[in-house]
């Protein structure tokens, strides 16, 4: 079987942590943006839509660079967060989670938006006549009915975060134990003589994690689906 070295385990654990934190923290923002895009008409909607999809079409290095100059220690946002809240992104795993979250964001938003658009708004009217205000309608009708989209979005975002390379390495570099994810570790191993075996092991791990995420998503989506059809 795979005989993983401690360094490899560290990269794997770090990758999972970064991808998980990126997905969970991005989720509320993703739901809010998806809801705005699905339901509201406002000035600058096209701009917001474009901005959300930017990381999908930009070269990841460019996204990473933009993160570096805005969220870096001397960047306007990075300096503000560091001075007022003690949140530091540059060369930390939190920065890796930020870049992974940004890169995964369009993949998170899209399925949630489609799910919200597909909801029969007459059900929300029915909830209103039963005494639910807008917040309760959202929590008890809109969100549960959008659950399959939420699951799909989270899995796509998680998978993207797990494999993210370009933006992360540009923004927070490739520091073992801090920002070196599986992808970065594989890249490093392919650059040194005799690293092939270790790279191969990490490749297998990456495949296994991705497959597990897909299977889990399928299972969750099916469960959410049967809830509607009352099996």
């Amino acid at each position: 079987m795979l005989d993983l070295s401690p360094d490899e385990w560290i990269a794997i654990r770090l990758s999972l942590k970064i991808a998980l934190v990126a997905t969970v923290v991005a989720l509320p923002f993703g739901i809010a943006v998806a809801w705005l895009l699905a339901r509201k008409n406002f000035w600058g909607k096209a701009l917001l839509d474009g901005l959300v999809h930017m990381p999908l079409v930009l070269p990841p290095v460019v996204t990473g660079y933009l993160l570096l100059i805005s969220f870096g220690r001397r960047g306007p946002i990075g300096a503000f967060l560091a001075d007022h809240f003690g949140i530091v992104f540059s060369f930390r795993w939190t920065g890796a989670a930020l870049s992974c979250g940004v890169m995964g964001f369009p993949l998170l938003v899209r399925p949630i938006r489609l799910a919200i658009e597909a909801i029969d708004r007459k059900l929300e009217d029915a909830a209103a006549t039963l005494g639910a205000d807008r917040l309760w309608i959202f929590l008890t009708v809109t969100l549960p009915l959008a659950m399959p989209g939420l699951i799909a979005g989270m899995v796509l975002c998680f998978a993207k975060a797990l494999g993210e390379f370009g933006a992360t390495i540009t923004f927070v570099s490739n520091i073992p134990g801090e920002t070196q994810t599986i992808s970065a570790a594989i890249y490093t191993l392919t650059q040194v003589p005799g690293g092939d075996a270790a790279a191969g092991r990490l490749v297998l791990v990456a495949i296994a994690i991705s497959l597990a995420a897909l299977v889990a998503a399928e299972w969750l989506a099916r469960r959410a689906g049967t809830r509607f059809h009352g099996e």
Partner: protein
Amino acid sequence: MSMLAVDVEKRLGDFSLAARFETAGGVTALFGASGAGKTTLVNMIAGLLPPDRGCIRLDDTVLFDSAARIDVPAHRRRIGYVFQEGRLFPHLSVAANLDYGRRMRGLARDGAETARIVNLLDIGHLLDRRPGKLSGGERQRVAFGRALLMRPRLLLLDEPLASLDAARKREILPYLQKLRDEAHVPMVYVSHHAGELKRIATAVVLLDAGRVAATGGLEVLDAATAELMA
């Protein structure tokens, strides 16, 4: 005596509605051809659609008054609404659907009242099911129960039998008559079937092309259908 007073105007594209009527409890039939504005009217009473002008009062509460800029939102009107297609929440069990209005309004659990309505509508054996597994008739009975259990001051029924075949309609009508006689909630019942209304209504408002053409007792139905035949 519970009383609903409606005097509203609304323009929707080419269609304009200007309707004025009052009811005094019982079951008021809102009768008219398709496109006469029946659903538009009940949506305004429910608070789902704002009138352009006018006012709506229920007993001594003003629900809408354009002059005084009053527009009580739907969720605070306490008006139950049974839709043509039921509109049960597909992600909730029948029991949770029935309980939804009570939860949203923050009312105390009332097991006796729930049991009474569940028995009245004969839906006790459906409580654990999801709406997707119900027949059309069962679905509408649950929709009646859901609207009643939020303890409405008024119940709006918009073509509640229209999606059902003749056999299902015959199955449901007795339940509706029981509701009228035992639930003690005034109703506004929308339909374009005079036969159905004769079995259930106590007063009639005839709507034609967005205007109230006649009001009165069940004889209005006979006159209107005779006119259609002529």
